[in-house]
């Protein structure tokens, strides 16, 4: 039982000099490349157009967020978390707040939990819509799906703005609740957006789902096996597309997700098409959650009244809190030594860890597939490099 | 000039240039190109003879040229394919180094 240390066999690459019959071409995709979603580089070795090797290069956006957090107060790191995965700042806030709440044992009032679920699922909607748009953009569709996605994202960002004051850098969560309650009329506005959203999804579906070119480009491309997905720590839609039934909303039952009836879609093939369809289906499930949450939201305080903004010192100890962010498992690991600042602050970035298998997915594929695969992994460099 | 003679001279010149290239170049592809050039000069002759010939309406020269071009195209395709195959074998297109039958 103990002898075998590597069941998920890593692809063993023969040395290049022996396999290569012809001269190989090594190109650097990125850091200035339209499809690397920011400053990301892949050193790709090509044989013709086929990828023989691919080495991702990280760190162009590295700002040592974790080090900065060690000199900030607990609250002071909250606005920095917005800037991790700037596509979904609110879920980042949430994960951090959750970790601190675990660390200090803070209870969250019910209304705040509902608010968190509402904004969190709205974030998931806009992230998934944009991701599909970007993926299509990478496959060369002149930005049309992306623009449609942005059109809908705009509406959600408007909601965020009128709730939190900022469109992207929301800084919304507080330990033990949320920063502000929703203004008058916000709920109706949000309900409107949620009611209109399925129309957009139908439109998207017409445009994309049965498109032959898209199916040809994505089906059977970048296949990730279930075993590798588990072993390599894939999370979120990336893992579920490979058939891994693991949704932290269901597993950890954090916040109040137990109360909502939603399903977890699973893919059977683990290719780019599955990853893309899983996101489609997740958006539909998110809409269900949103509808229920908006219907049931109770009145009450939005933040634990005992929580103080200044001078927050959790007792010594440590905690790992994680949520199902749109990209996957976003976790924060905090160690407190009883002072104002965390002794250790660690972000478990789903984007980075989902990139572990990038080379495995890309080898043997075409250059054109590499951008599609990278797009389907769904990374944001702010989170990868931190 | 500009009579048949000048065309024939041009054709002869092209032929010699092609021949010189085929004989002197080391690169197999360029040698093949030299041969193509020689074929071309022959075509030029056909056309010139047809045009200055007694019965241009009979199109014989043109037919010859068309067939010759087709043959040349086929020859180029096969020739380049052979060069590619030879390159795979010996990793060079240098004829001076491709002198061994064993490879």
């Amino acid at each position, binding site marked *: 039982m103990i002898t075998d240390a590597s069941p998920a066999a890593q692809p063993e690459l023969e040395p290049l000099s022996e396999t290569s019959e012809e001269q190989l071409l090594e190109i650097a995709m990125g850091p200035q490349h339209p499809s690397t979603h920011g400053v990301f580089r892949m050193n790709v070795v090509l044989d013709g157009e086929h990828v023989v090797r691919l080495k991702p290069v990280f760190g162009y956006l590295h700002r040592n967020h974790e080090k900065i957090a060690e000199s900030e107060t607990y609250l002071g790191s909250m606005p920095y978390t917005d800037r991790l995965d700037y596509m979904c700042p609110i879920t980042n806030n949430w994960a951090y707040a959750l970790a601190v709440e675990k660390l200090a044992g803070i209870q969250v009032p019910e209304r705040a939990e509902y608010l968190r679920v509402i904004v969190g699922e709205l974030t998931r909607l806009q992230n998934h819509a944009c991701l599909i748009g970007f993926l299509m953009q990478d496959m060369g569709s002149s930005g049309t799906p992306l623009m449609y996605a942005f059109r809908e994202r705009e509406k959600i960002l408007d909601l965020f703005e009128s709730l939190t004051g900022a469109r992207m850098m929301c800084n919304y969560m507080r330990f033990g609740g949320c920063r502000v309650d929703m203004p008058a009329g916000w709920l109706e506005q949000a309900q409107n957006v949620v009611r209109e959203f399925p129309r957009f999804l139908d439109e998207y579906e017409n445009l994309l789902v049965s498109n032959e070119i898209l199916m040809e480009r994505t089906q059977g491309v970048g296949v990730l096996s279930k075993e590798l997905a588990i072993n390599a720590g894939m999370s979120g839609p990336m893992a579920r597309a490979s058939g891994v039934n693991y949704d932290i909303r269901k597993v950890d039952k954090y916040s109040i997700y137990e109360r909502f009836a939603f399903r977890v879609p699973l893919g059977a093939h683990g290719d780019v098409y599955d990853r893309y369809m899983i996101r489609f289906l997740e958006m539909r499930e998110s809409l269900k959650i949103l509808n229920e949450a908006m219907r049931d939201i109770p009145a009450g305080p939005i933040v634990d009244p005992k929580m103080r903004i200044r001078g927050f010192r959790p007792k010594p100890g440590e905690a790992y809190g994680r949520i199902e962010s749109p990209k996957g498992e976003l976790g924060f690991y905090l160690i407190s030594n009883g002072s104002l600042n965390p002794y250790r602050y660690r972000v478990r970035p789903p984007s980075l860890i989902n990139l572990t298998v990038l080379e495995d997915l890309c080898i043997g594929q075409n250059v054109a597939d590499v951008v599609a695969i990278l797009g389907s992994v769904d990374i944001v460099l702010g989170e990868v490099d931190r | 000039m500009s*009579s048949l003679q000048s065309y024939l001279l041009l054709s002869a010149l092209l032929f010699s240039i092609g021949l010189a290239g085929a004989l002197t170049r080391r690169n197999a592809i360029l040698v093949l190109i030299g041969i193509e050039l020689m074929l071309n000069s022959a075509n030029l002759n056909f056309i010139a003879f047809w045009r200055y010939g007694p019965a241009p309406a009979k199109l014989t020269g043109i037919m010859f040229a068309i067939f010759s071009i087709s043959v040349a195209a086929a020859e180029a395709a096969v020739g380049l394919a052979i060069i590619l195959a030879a390159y795979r074998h010996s990793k060079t297109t240098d004829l001076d180094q491709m002198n061994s039958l064993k490879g």
Partner: protein
Amino acid sequence: MTVTFLILAVITVAGTAAAMGLRNAVHCVLALTVGFAGVAAIYLQLDAQFVGLTQIMVYVGAVAILAVFAIMMTHTPLPAKPPTYSSFWLLGSVVAAAVFAVLAWAICSSAASTQGLPPEPEVSVQQIGDALMHQFVLPLEIMGLLLTAALIGAVVIAMDRREETK
């Protein structure tokens, strides 16, 4: 007429000479296309429109492209390493020069080559088609066979061995 011919002849000869003389193989092919185009223009000038256009299509559009493709695929060093020419380049040049001398002598001394230009013939594409389909139908068939054979042969020869094993 004469002027046009002279210009075209100069272009053709310059192009082909450059094609055979330049060191960079890609430059050679590009120069060669100039030569081919010149020859095509001479065909046009000789009222052989169809052949001229076919020449452009086949030589410029196919043979030259094939050649550059072959150059790219064989990773010919660009520009070539110093010995661009074969070890017996002197002999080759002499042979070529001799051939030209003999040909030129023969042409100049031939009586037939001095005759004047006959009236412009009426050559429509339709006529060529008719001729191909009636008088020359057998050669056409053979040519078709040859081209097919060449196509298959080229594919088979150039096919990657790795592909075969799959």
